[in-house]
Structures are given as C-alpha cells and as structure tokens.
C-alpha cells in the first residue's frame, strides 16, 4: 500500500472553508446582482442612493472620526505609559487595554446606557439633555471605549522600539525635539500609526451589536443597522437583495482599507524588532 500524501491533512479545513465560507459569499455575490432570478445592477444602484447612501456615509463618518481620534488619543496614552518609569502603572494600563480592547458588543452598550443614557448616573449629575448618548458624538464616545485601548496595544510595542540612541544621535547633530519627532520618530512610527488607524476603522465600521443594543439607529444612520433591518423585517419584501448589495459595498470598503494595512505591517516589523 502506498503512503497517502501528507497534504491530505489540509483537505478537511479546505472543504469546510469552501462550504461554510465560500457558499455564503457566493450567495451574497449572486444575490447582489440578481433580482427575481434575472441579472441586474438595480440592487447595487439602489444600495448607493437615498437612505442607503446616507447610512453608508454615516458609518464611514463615525468610523473615520473614531479611527482618527482614537489613534491620536491612544498614541498619547501609549507614549505616556511607555515613558513612565513605574512598571506597576505600565502593567496596569497594558492589562486594562487588553481587557477593554476585547470589551465590545452588547455589554459595552449597557455600560454607557447606565452612564450617559437618559436615566444614566452621570447624565443625571451633569443634567445632560435626553438623547445625548444616542447622537453622533455619543456613538463616537462609546466606540472610543474599545478603540483607544486597541490603539494603545498597537502603539506600545512600536514606541518601545524607538531607541534612545536615535534621539541622542539626532541631538548630537543639533536637532531640536521637533526635528527629532518630525524626521526620525514619526517616519519610523508611520506604518504602525496607519496600521492602527486601519484596524480602528475596520472594527468601528463592522460594529453592529453595540449600536443595535443602544438603539442608536433612529438618530445615527448606520449601514450595519440598515442591513439587519432589511434582513429581519417582513415588511420589506424584496429588500433582501438590496441588503446583499449593501453587504457587498461594505466588504469592498473594508477590503480596500485592509489592502493599505497589510503591506504597511510588513514595513513596521522590518524596522522595529
């Protein structure tokens, strides 16, 4: 008997993958480009106009604001932690970041409802008007709760990799602190920074559970809520294929953003060992 080739071990995973991931993706693609069994571009066109376009724009806006502000705040926090001499503080912040970066979804929503919601503890103290949490900036504040820790986790190793010798060499050559940051540190950190921005954008863009549990859809239009509504409601018959077209738009945007990220990650790892 011949020995069976060893690569057969990959077959179960590949078969599973084709079946469980490939078929739904194929169904998504097929559904997005057909209507009542006939090929058409109407779904895609419909997914890019009116309320659907508003929702897509809302999602992109929220994600972009969260990604940029989260990146800046997270980098500052990471730098404060990395340069601090207290290891206890450093460990505490990094552990907390690990926990909070994974703390999303439904529980996150209820945390903020209890804090800044209409009957929340802090909104009562501050006398915030009803509905403040359910606005654009309310959603941004909620999303930053996991985005900033995520950025800290991305930036802390990169900032650790900045060698003191680089700063000394720059200073010996007459560079000011500004020169050092602008011409030495920032170029080295750029790939990590951009990678972090992409990661934050992606996670805010894909987030559905938090917004759904908060019930923020009424004020802030989000594409994830739009897709969920079209899939679950019985009223909107025939909207499923538009939901599939919206899904396709989302994947295209997420894919484009990811395409920026992957090559950058390789560059980071080359510089910062």
């Amino acid at each position: 008997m011949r020995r069976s080739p060893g690569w057969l071990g990959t077959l179960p995973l590949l078969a599973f993958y084709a079946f469980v991931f490939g078929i739904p993706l194929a169904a998504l693609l097929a559904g997005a480009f057909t209507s009542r069994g006939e090929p058409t571009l109407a779904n895609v066109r419909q997914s890019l106009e009116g309320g659907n376009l508003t929702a897509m724009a809302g999602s992109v806006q929220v994600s972009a604001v969260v990604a940029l502000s989260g990146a800046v705040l997270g980098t500052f926090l990471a730098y404060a932690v990395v340069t601090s001499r207290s290891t206890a503080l450093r460990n505490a912040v990094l552990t907390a970041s690990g926990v909070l970066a994974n703390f999303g979804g439904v529980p996150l929503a209820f945390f903020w409802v209890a804090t800044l919601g209409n009957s929340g503890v802090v909104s009562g103290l501050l006398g915030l008007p009803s509905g403040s949490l359910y606005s654009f900036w309310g959603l941004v504040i909620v999303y930053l709760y996991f985005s900033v820790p995520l950025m800290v986790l991305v930036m802390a190793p990169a900032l650790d990799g900045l060698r003191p010798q680089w700063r000394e060499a720059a200073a010996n050559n007459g560079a000011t602190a500004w020169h050092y940051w602008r011409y030495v540190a920032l170029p080295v950190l750029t790939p990590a920074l951009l990678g972090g921005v992409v990661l934050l954008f992606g996670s805010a863009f894909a987030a559905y559970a938090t917004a759904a549990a908060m019930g923020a859809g009424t004020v802030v239009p989000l594409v994830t809520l739009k897709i969920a509504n079209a899939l679950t409601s019985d009223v909107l018959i025939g909207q499923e294929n538009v939901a599939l077209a919206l899904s396709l738009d989302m994947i295209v945007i997420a894919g484009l953003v990811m395409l920026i990220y992957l090559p950058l990650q390789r560059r980071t790892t080359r510089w910062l060992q």
Partner: protein
Amino acid sequence: MAAVTGLEQPLVTAPARPARPRAWRAAVFVIAGLYFLVPLGASLWYTVYTPTTGLSFEPYAELLTAEGFASSLSLSLALALATIALVLLLTLPAMLAVRLFAPGLRPLMEVLCTLPLVVPPITYVAGLSTSLRVGADVLAPTPFWATLIAVQDPGFPVVLVLAYVVLVLPFVYRSLDAGLRTMDVRTLVEAARSLGASWPHVMFRVIIPNLRSALASASFLTLALVFGEFTVSRLLGYQPFAVWIVTISGSRGQVSVAVSILSLLLIWLLLLAVSTAFGREKK
C-alpha cells in the same frame, strides 16, 4: 551582569534624562483614568442604587432566577465548547500538514485564514441566511433537506458553530502559527517517527504537549468571542447569552447592566488565563 552594574553605579547617580516638566503625562493619565473608570463606577452604582429602594444588591440575585438566564448561558457554553473542538480539529492537522509536507500551500493558507477579518460579521450572516433560504428551496426534494433543517435546530443550532468557526479562524490561525514557530516541527516528528512512534503517538505525546499554551490561548480567545457574539445569532434568530441580555434589557435594565459588568470580569479572567498560559511557556 549584576557585577558590572555594581561597578558602574557611582557613575549613573545623576538622572539619565534631563528633568523636564511631566505635567502632560499626569494630565493624560487623569483624563484616561476618568474616561475609562467613570463608566465602570457609574454602571456599578446603577445596578445597586435606585432612588426608590436605596442601596440593594437585588439585581445580582435576580440574575440567577431570571427567565432564560440558565438556558441562554448553557447554550452559549455548549456552542463555545463545540466551536473550540471543531476549529482545533480542522486547523491543527491542516497547519501541521502544510508545515511537514506542503510548504507551498502556506501563503494560500495564510490568505484564506485572514480573509474572514475583511468580511464584517453582518455581511457574512447576510450571505449565510440567504444561502440557508435558497438551500432549503433547492434541497427540498432531496434527503439533504432534513440535514439542513437539523443543522438549524433551535435546541442546539449547529449552524452557529459553523459560522463561529469561520469568525474565529483568523485568531486561532495566528495563535497556533505563533506556537508552531517556537518549535522545530519537522525535526521533532522525524525523531519521534524514527524511534518507532505511531502517528497518533506523535500527535498526542509530542506535538500537542509542545503546543499547550498556543492551544490554550486559541481556546480562550474562542470562548471569549463566542460568549460575546451577538450579530450572527441575533440575525439567524437564536438566543444565546448576548442576545438574551438585550431581550431582558427592556424590562429589567438593572439586570442587563449587572450582566455587562460580570462579562467584563469574565473577559479579564480569560485574558489572565491566556497570559499565565504564555508566561509559563517562557520559563
């Protein structure tokens, strides 16, 4: 090293860095501390205090008797265990086979296992529910129809396990890949085989013990992810833990916040378990 540092000590008594105002750092920590701790404190306060009844820990007791708590919790646990078993059963042999026999397949494997990260869960479930619906129509005259229905049994929805395996695949792949990098798989396997070990023996007595911490971290990450998963189960119409929290939040706001605090605690414990698993490996 200690001796060298001892000799140099008198030279480094002066501060290594120039003394500069560190006020900005204090400000950063204070703002971050407020932003991250206030919601935690407010949520705790929200669960134990109401103006009408005063201080009470009732919501935490109510939790245990709340309708659906036990069933949704046990469903989530069962789903998590099944997902862990299936994802490890699929990925571990595949990754070993690629390393030992088909290194050429490695880039393909890496792309396939990263792809689910690009596809947001909500779009995946849109495709999944469509294919389930279409599949039921297409398969209606064949015996496979019964299988398709059995997979969606509300008592134990196998379809959720399948979907979760896809969602956790990138994390499990990375974790196992990191674990396999720390050992020389080929040499270990060849040594064991040339000493007469059978394949199951190699697997269970050589490979798996060396991968213990990577397997543990993959399992804990999967557990955390499945426990918090809401999108897929909600849109397919099942009620595991995360969906249950939203369901009760309408009538019992305090209980849902109490559960949220407990799930933060659970994530912390799971991460602690992961880091101790990795910490032990390093020694």
